[in-house]
């Protein structure tokens, strides 16, 4: 069972939840309040949804040996544009206006993703540099859109994206799971996933075997932009308002952490969407745990770093192998396997 690729991330998540159960049994209390589910676990799902989305997009980008640093800025732009449009409407509660606002924001995010894809796949700029451009400029664009102010909105339908409930369950997690389900189906039930892994694993071999890797690369950046755009709408809808300075700040690093925890290789070629979802939930659980247990905020970052370090250590086959070797002599086949994995 320990060989399953999700074994370690899932056990880390369960271990963290176990800590919560011991320290604060009420952490697991879920009740129906005001017509929706209410409890810490529900908060984790609702607040974790944007990171899950950004993480899914990032996972596919990383699978092709790329990286997208601009997602945080795209999050800010998406929320800023939607809120700017909504704030100008005579009736913010109108569903039509909300749909237009969401459509405009997502359209722009698709274009921004296409811009990243263009730089990487057509101009051949290294992904980390290509997306750094939009990471820096993008926050500036978001600030231009909002004029440096926080745009507060009241629109009911828009707010539902971030803090609404459907059949008792947060809308945001339903959207995130829908995107997860669709993208999993696409990559695992069609050849798409195999092609992505081929592009990431060895681009040259992929090209020689007739793969149009350029088009695939372009596609994953566009998808990454779309995911970041939806996440941006959720974050804006949760507050509710557009904060161009803070929305999505450092989310690219959290997303990279989530997919690393989930077992996706940053060197490309091997990826796991399910692992990313678990990783994102682990990060959000950690944040909520810190707040719930009342860990002093001067120690918060240290506690988070220690947990992440632990998770990464148990994930590392080389580290596990060393621990095991201390306990008992290793059979030849196993050490050979470990070398193969870590190579």
């Amino acid at each position, binding site marked *: 069972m320990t060989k399953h690729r999700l074994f370690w991330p899932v056990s880390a998540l369960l271990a963290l939840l176990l800590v919560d159960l011991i320290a604060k049994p*009420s952490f697991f209390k879920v009740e129906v309040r005001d017509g929706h589910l209410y409890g810490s676990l529900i908060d984790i799902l609702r607040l974790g949804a944007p990171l899950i989305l950004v993480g899914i997009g990032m996972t596919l980008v990383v699978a092709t040996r790329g990286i997208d640093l601009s997602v945080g800025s795209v999050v800010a732009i998406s929320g800023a544009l939607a809120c700017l449009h909504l704030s100008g409407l005579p009736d913010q509660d109108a569903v039509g206006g909300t749909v237009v606002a969401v459509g405009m924001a997502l359209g722009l995010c698709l274009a921004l993703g296409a811009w990243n894809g263009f730089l990487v796949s057509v101009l051949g700029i290294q992904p980390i540099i290509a997306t750094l*451009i939009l990471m820096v*400029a993008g926050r500036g664009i978001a600030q231009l859109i909002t004029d*440096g102010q926080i745009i507060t909105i009241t629109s009911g339908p828009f707010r539902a994206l971030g803090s609404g409930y459907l059949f008792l369950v947060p809308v945001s997690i339903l959207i995130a799971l829908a995107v997860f389900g669709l993208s999993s189906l696409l990559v695992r039930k069609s050849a798409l996933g195999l092609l992505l892994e081929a592009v990431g694993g060895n681009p040259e071999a992929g090209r020689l075997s007739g793969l149009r890797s350029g088009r695939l690369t372009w596609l994953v950046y566009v998808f990454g932009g779309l995911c970041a755009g939806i996440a941006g709408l959720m974050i804006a809808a949760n507050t509710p308002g557009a904060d161009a300075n803070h929305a999505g700040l450092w989310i690219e690093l959290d997303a990279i952490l989530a997919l690393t925890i989930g077992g996706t290789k940053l060197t490309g070629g091997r990826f796991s969407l399910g692992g990313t979802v678990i990783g994102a939930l682990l990060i959000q659980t950690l944040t909520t745990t810190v*707040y719930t247990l009342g860990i002093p905020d*001067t120690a918060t970052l240290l506690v988070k770093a220690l947990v992440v370090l632990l998770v990464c250590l148990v994930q590392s086959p080389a580290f596990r192998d060393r621990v095991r070797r201390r306990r008992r002599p290793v059979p030849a086949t196993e050490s050979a396997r470990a070398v193969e994995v870590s190579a």
Partner: protein
Amino acid sequence: MFGKKWAALAAGVMGVTLLTGCGGAADSAGGGAITLGFSQVGAESGWRTANTKSIQESAKSAGIELKFSDAQQKQENQITAIRSFIQQKVKVIAFSPVVESGWDTVLKEAKTAGIPVILTDRSVDSSDKTLYKTFLGSDFVAEGKKAGEWLVKESAAATGDVNVVELQGSTGSAPANDRKKGFADAIGSTSKIKVVASQTGEFTRAKGKEVMEAFLKSQSKIDVLYAHNDDMALGAIEAIEAAGKKPGTDIKIVSVDAVKDGMQALADGKINYIVECNPLLGPQLMDLVKKVSAGEEVPARIETQETEFDQAKAKAALPQRQY
């Protein structure tokens, strides 16, 4: 190339601001006017924008020629701006330091050139107090104290414990440290008021909401929320409402800043009390500039004129609120 384009655009916008700043003042004042070089932190919030506007407008009406520069949150931009003010031989330099330390060299250059310096809103951390004439800004400890004093008065009739949760500003920032300290000092002698949980909400709405959600689940009884700024209080209101409670009634809220959205919530009864942190320090600054350039002595520390708002006062003040 994209980045360059935006940089060029930003530079253009800054240039225009600078030109209109000088032009406007020169029109009203003529040749013998006092010139003031002012370097602003940036335009990160509504508070900051109101601060900028106040300085620009009051310079105009005081007949002071203003050279305005936006540092966009970067200390090196601010140092460059101050050096260019020195070269242009302005009469007085004023600035809101982006960070607390690292100012000694450039301030010494200003001192050598004989140009007096006024700090606004934020202070610098320097052992040599002769490097600047005065510091005009809010007293964050006093703000926290006022919030605490209100709570002591408000809960005078309460018989049981009063459980308070606190949303702090960014960890380590001067307003967060001082507002926490002032509040703790004010409630110190009242044993029934207890701060049961205190976490940073990083001065943002999103974090304010997220932390309050966790507080609502981990604390069995919350009577009062103390937020270090309005934005976090606004986020927390969302969390309280989602928990099926009434902000302002079930959980009383006191915060600091008095920005427009906060005042609206106060007028709507969702916040109970706001201690003002006034960005409109333009008129006081221009007064100081005139005094300093005339060689008059000024106190080394001047506090901005600030007030507090309850719900009735907020309703009255809201229509004129600029920021």
